[in-house]
């Protein structure tokens, strides 16, 4: 057997074994790594949690500030009312 024949024999077209294509497709599908779904989900949850915490903190801070302001306003108006009435009483007493 000369070299030409050896090469021709080695490179000759061969038909694949039965169900070769199916096995290739099946192996390719099996070896494909599943995309990690968890990180995206975790990110979404973390962002949502941060938003909720942020909004809640802001709301609570504003509520605290409003409560304190309303207390101060009531005290201030009560003092103003008390002093106004005292001044009126004194002025009235002086007139009488």
């Amino acid at each position, binding site marked *: 057997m000369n070299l030409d024949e050896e090469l021709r024999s080695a490179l000759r077209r061969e038909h694949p074994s039965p169900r070769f294509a199916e096995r290739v497709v099946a192996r390719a599908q099996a070896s494909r790594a599943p995309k990690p779904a968890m990180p995206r989900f975790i990110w979404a949850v973390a962002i949502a949690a941060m938003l909720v915490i942020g909004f809640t903190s802001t709301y609570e801070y504003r509520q605290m500030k409003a409560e304190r*302001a*309303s207390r*101060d306003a*009531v*005290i201030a*108006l*009560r003092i103003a009312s*008390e*002093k106004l009435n005292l001044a009126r009483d*004194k002025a009235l007493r002086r007139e009488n």
Partner: protein
Amino acid sequence: MAWIAACAAAQLPAQLLQLRITGLDGLASKASESVDITLDSNLLRMAGGFLAGTGNDAKDGKDASDIKGLIAGLKAITVRSYQFKETGQYRKEDLEPIRAQLRTPGWNKIISSQSKDETSEIYTRIEKGKVVGFAIIAAEPKELTVVAIEGSIDLNDLSKLKALGVPSIPVPDKKGKQQ
């Protein structure tokens, strides 16, 4: 440029008429009890909103709404009140910077009661028939109170406030420094 100058000139009278309580800062350290409250329009708006949400029963709801009604027209409240254990902790001259502002045009002294060692003065600023500024100076031997209120306020409603009692929100007694 001229437009900015015109706007500034238009704002000037209002700024000049705003009463600033100055010259009393050093008294807090001498006082046994002090109240120091400064509320601007933003805080008053927040307070009004908070009071609107308080009081579920009819009486509390009315109290809160009465106070909210008083606050509604206000732009600023400033209160400085000091109680001393001994007399002579403040001087009459300490009040001069405030009195000087109250002598400017726009302010009117409506009540003045002076005895040997007590002074009560009520001032108002009226614009278009409405009270838009209100100030009290109450000086006693062991107590000094100055109140300045900016904005529309009905003095009759204010004088009735004491009779309303404490509104639905818990209000601490006048103890310790506020704010």
